[in-house]
Structure formats: C-alpha cells, structure tokens
C-alpha cells in the first residue's frame, strides 16, 4: 500500500529511464540524503564520526570501485587494498611536493595515478579470466605493498616508514591532519562520495555500463556483436581503480591520519571484497548496505551488550565479529548470491503488491 506503483504512468522514454521512476523511491532517497547531510552531522558525536559515519562512506566508495570491476565488468580483483594504497601515496606525494595544492584537488587527482596502475595490472585480463586473473591482481597486491615499504621516496625517507598527514587547510579551514575537525572531514568525504556515486550510476546505466555487463555475461557474444573487449575491460579497470584510489586517499587523509604500508595489505582487499559481496555484486546501493553491515557490526557488538549490562571481553568481541562476518559471507554466497541489494529488491517487490499478493 505504501509502495503502490499503480497509476504512475510514463509518457516518455526519458521519464521511463529516469533514475527513480517510482515516486516512493525518490521519497526514500530524499529521506536518506537528509539524514546523511543534515541529521547525522548535527547529532553525531566525535566517536560516531570516527567509528561509523566516515569509515562507512569511505569503505562504500572503495567497494563501489571494486564493484564496477567485479560486479559490472566481471573481472575478479584481489588487489583493491594495494590500489587504495596507490591513491593514498600519490596524494601524500602531491601534497608534500606541492604544498600549495588544494587538498580536494589532490585527492581527486590521486585517483588518476591508481587508474594508471590499475590499467597496467589489468592488461593480463585480456588473456586470462576468473581465478587466474584474481591471482594476477594478487601479484599487484604483493608487489605494490612491497614497493610502499622499500621505495623510501614514497614516504619522504621518513624514519618510521609511514606516511603522516600534515595539517592541510582550505580557505582557512583545516580539512586534514591532527587539527581538522571530524565534521569538516565528514562533509568533505560525503561530497566526494556523492559525486563519484553519481558518476558511477551514470556510467553503469548508460552505454558503457551495458558494454561492461555484456563483457561479464558472455564475452564471446559481446565481441561478436561489436564490443571491443580490450577497451571494455581496460575502461573498467581504469574507472574502478580511479574510484578505489580516491577512496584510498580519503581513507588516509580524511580518516586514519597516518598509514604504514601493511595497512594496504591483503586483509584490506578482502574487507572491501566482503563488503561488495555481502552488499551485492552488480549493484551500486549494495556497497552502502555492505559497508554499513561490515563497519557497523563490530561497533554494535561492542556497545549493545555493554548497554544491556552484559560484560563481554574485547578479545571475544573481535572473535565474534570475525565469526559472524564469516558465516554471513557463507550465508550470502549460498542463499542470496546477489547480496543485501537483492534482498531489498525482493522486499520492495513484495511491498508493491502488499497487502494483496496476487
């Protein structure tokens, strides 16, 4: 009843292919946007910003990048963490070499470097697919992390081997570094994430998106109807690595504040891959749902039992978290391979015909 679509007729193809052809969807999106832009920032505490809001956005963006490659173009990648690292190190070098540079521009440009690296490591995808390609991207993962460690120019010969985000200001307002406030950083992340999500939606619903999906579903048929597979796969690598790189720069500059090479090691890649899988491969919204679950679950496990008066040791919380996420991944792979996004789609279909199921 609440979700009834009857009577919403389209009289032009433009209206029919609108992003949200159903009124209720736009309404729901409006509520979510108001929450993200107004309600959360006004009510959130420092703790909430640092443990929930900002990391959810950044992980969503990383998963979005991976999802374009794996979910839309069908090229499995295990190198996400390293590509995030490329973005972070590129941003660090730009900021330290050119301190006059606007931090937001630097963050957006750092994606260009990771896009370049991503395309280079995507070249094997022209010959190999599936697991074998995953292994090739795994090589990128190990090689790049090794490079972050050994190439001291990357971290300005810092004795600790880590990169430290300096205080950066934009129009007199600190946006990164120890002096920046969480709310400023949250808004910056939100702006960049919203912008890139909009771009990703447009790319995936248009001609390029269909080219990617055709490559994913049946590459031989795709080539025989006129798709240049090389171009299709490499654009997917480029767009995906760009978004992943920007998320890596945000990860360090807007959230962590500092990074060692092993931060970008394989656990990060897997974390992002889990978000994409649990959220739903081939879906944009799924990345947000997956990130909310993966980032939010440990926080919930930490705070809810304490609030209820049950005492759980922090080591146990850590183990519980791993066990729950592990079983969720198995659950989703078996029961609903299309993830949380598909669950929402099914609920929506049910809601549309509710309360008369026939």
């Amino acid at each position, binding site marked *: 009843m609440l979700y009834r679509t009857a009577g919403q007729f389209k009289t032009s193809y*433009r209206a029919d292919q609108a992003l949200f052809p159903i009124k209720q969807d736009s309404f729901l999106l409006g509520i979510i946007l108001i929450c993200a832009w107004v309600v959360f920032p006004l009510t959130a505490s420092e703790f909430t910003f640092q443990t929930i809001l900002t990391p959810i956005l950044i992980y969503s963006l990383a998963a979005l990048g991976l999802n374009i490659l794996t979910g839309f173009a069908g090229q499995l990648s295990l190198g996400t963490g390293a590509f995030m690292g490329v973005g972070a190190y590129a941003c660090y070098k730009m900021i330290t070499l050119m301190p006059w540079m606007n931090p937001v521009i630097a963050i957006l440009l750092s994606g260009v470097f990771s896009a370049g690296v991503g395309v280079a490591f995507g070249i094997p995808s022209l010959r190999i697919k599936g697991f074998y390609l995953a292994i090739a991207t795994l090589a990128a993962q190990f090689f790049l992390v090794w490079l972050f460690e050994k190439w001291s120019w990357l971290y300005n010969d810092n004795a600790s081997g880590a990169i430290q985000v300096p205080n950066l200001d934009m129009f007199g307002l600190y946006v990164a570094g120890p002096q920046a406030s969480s709310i400023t950083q949250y808004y910056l992340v939100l702006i960049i994430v919203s912008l890139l999500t909009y771009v990703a939606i*447009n790319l995936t619903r248009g*001609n390029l998106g269909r*080219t990617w*999906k*055709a490559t994913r*579903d049946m590459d031989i048929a795709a*080539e025989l*109807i006129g798709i*240049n597979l090389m171009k299709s796969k490499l654009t997917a690598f480029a767009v995906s690595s760009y978004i992943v790189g920007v998320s890596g720069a945000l990860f360090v500059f807007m959230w962590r504040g500092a990074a060692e090479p092993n931060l970008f090691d394989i656990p990060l890649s897997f974390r992002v891959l889990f978000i994409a899988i649990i959220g739903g491969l081939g879906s944009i919204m799924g990345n947000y749902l997956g990130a909310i679950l993966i980032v939010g679950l440990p926080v919930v496990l930490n705070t809810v039992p304490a609030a209820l008066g049950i005492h759980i040791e922090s080591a146990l919380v850590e183990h519980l978290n791993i066990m729950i996420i592990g079983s969720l991944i198995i659950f989703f792979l078996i029961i609903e391979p299309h993830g949380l996004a598909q669950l929402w789609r099914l609920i929506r279909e049910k809601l549309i015909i509710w309360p008369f199921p026939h």
Partner: protein
Amino acid sequence: MSVPAGPYLTEDGRQIGDVLMEMKNITLKFGGVVAIKDISFDIREGEIRAIIGPNGAGKSSMLNVISGFYHPQEGEVWYKGSVRPAMKPFEVARQGVGRTFQNIALFEGMTVLDNVMTGRLTHMHASVWDQAIWWGKAEREEVFNRDQVEKVIDFLEIQAIRKTPVGRLPYGLKKRVELARALAAEPSLLLLDEPMAGMNVEEKEDMSRFILDVNDEFGTTIALIEHDMGVVMDLSDRVVVMDYGKKIGDGTPDEVRNDQAVIDAYLGVPHE
C-alpha cells in the same frame, strides 16, 4: 530456374541486388583437420541465403569465418566490393555484419531492453565524460536509441517482456530476443545460426514469419544455417550445400533438391 547474374525481382516482388559478400576459395584448418576446403560462394543484397549440410559439414565454421571469429588459412572474403583484411570480430560487427548464435548467447544478467540496447552500441558515440555527466548528449543519445530499439521490440512483438531479466524467459522468447538484439544494430548482413533449433512447429512458424518480415521490411540480407529442410526450402532464395567441408551444391531450392550429390549426402552413400 537458376537466378540471373544481375539485379532482378523475385516472384514475390523483392528486389535482389548485386553481390554483398563473396567468399573466394576459403580453406580453414584446425591443425590437421580441414574444416572448410576451398569453398566459394556469394551472398547478394536483399536475398535470403541458406547454408545447409549434415552435422559436422562446416556450416558453423563458415559462419564464424564470415563474422571474423575464425581466420581462414587460404582464400579471401570480399565485402561491399573490396577484400576484407584480417580483422577482429568486433570490427566486422561494426562494418554491419550482425548475427545470432546456435546456442543462445544473450546477456543473462540484463533485461530484454538492455540486451537489445546493447545491440545499438555501434550507433552510440557519447564519450565516457558525456556519459559520466549524463545530462545532455548521453541522455539525448539514450532516448534516441531507445526509440529505435522500441521499433524493433514492437516489430518482434516482445513489448510485454521488455523489462524482464533474460534469464527468466523461456527458450523460444530468448531466440526472439537474440534476433532483436541483432536487428537493433541495423546490420546490412544478418547471420542466423540455426534460428529454429529446438522449437516447436508454432514457434518455427513465428520465427519464419519474422525472418521474412525482416527481409521484406528492412531489406536486410540474411544468411542462415538451418536443419529443418521445409523451412529452408520455403524461406531461402538460394542454398549452399556443404558436406565434409566441401561445397557439393549451390543454387535455388529446386535445383538443390534435385541434385544427386545433395541427395546422396543427406541419405548417405558409402564413401569410396
């Protein structure tokens, strides 16, 4: 009975033009196996050309040579009056050769509409930047091509399923969607690899009607492989018969039907 050398009108009034594609002495080998041995034939503008033959005769290989998937070791492919250099399949498709597949090769994760829209991609030119911004060029192009796609969807009577994911469709409809995807590209030459395979009589009648209508309305040249002899003889203007990689007959359906070599190939005679 045989067809004239130049352009002519068929009995039912369709215009047949000059040679669109000509295969000259094609030989295709896979290692020591000779799949196609020194075959020559031509396809003329506006005609329906059938390629028939027993299983393993090399028909599908021939179609794959035409669509650029296989590269013959010997021989030349002439297209629109010039020799076609060795090119990738997607370049051949962009030159106006569309095709369907023997085993349905649709993009299962996409809706019918998206599948058919994918067929239009050779007509879409908005850059990545235009598409990222969407407003303006990309959207105009999308709407224009949607309009073209809807014409094909109307033509093939699949309006009701346009937003259904292809994976949910029954076999007969999938075949039709595949034809729609190929047609959306507005090909000058349409290759159909066993369009009736696995269909019942009713579906075959539908498909035959669509093939004739496509040829009639759009003037699309069609080359098809089919095992149902009734269909082949009724639909096609000329027939190439292959057996063991060799051409054993070429001509109008009547000529082919009465050819002793063809009869032998189909009924089976001992090979010396």
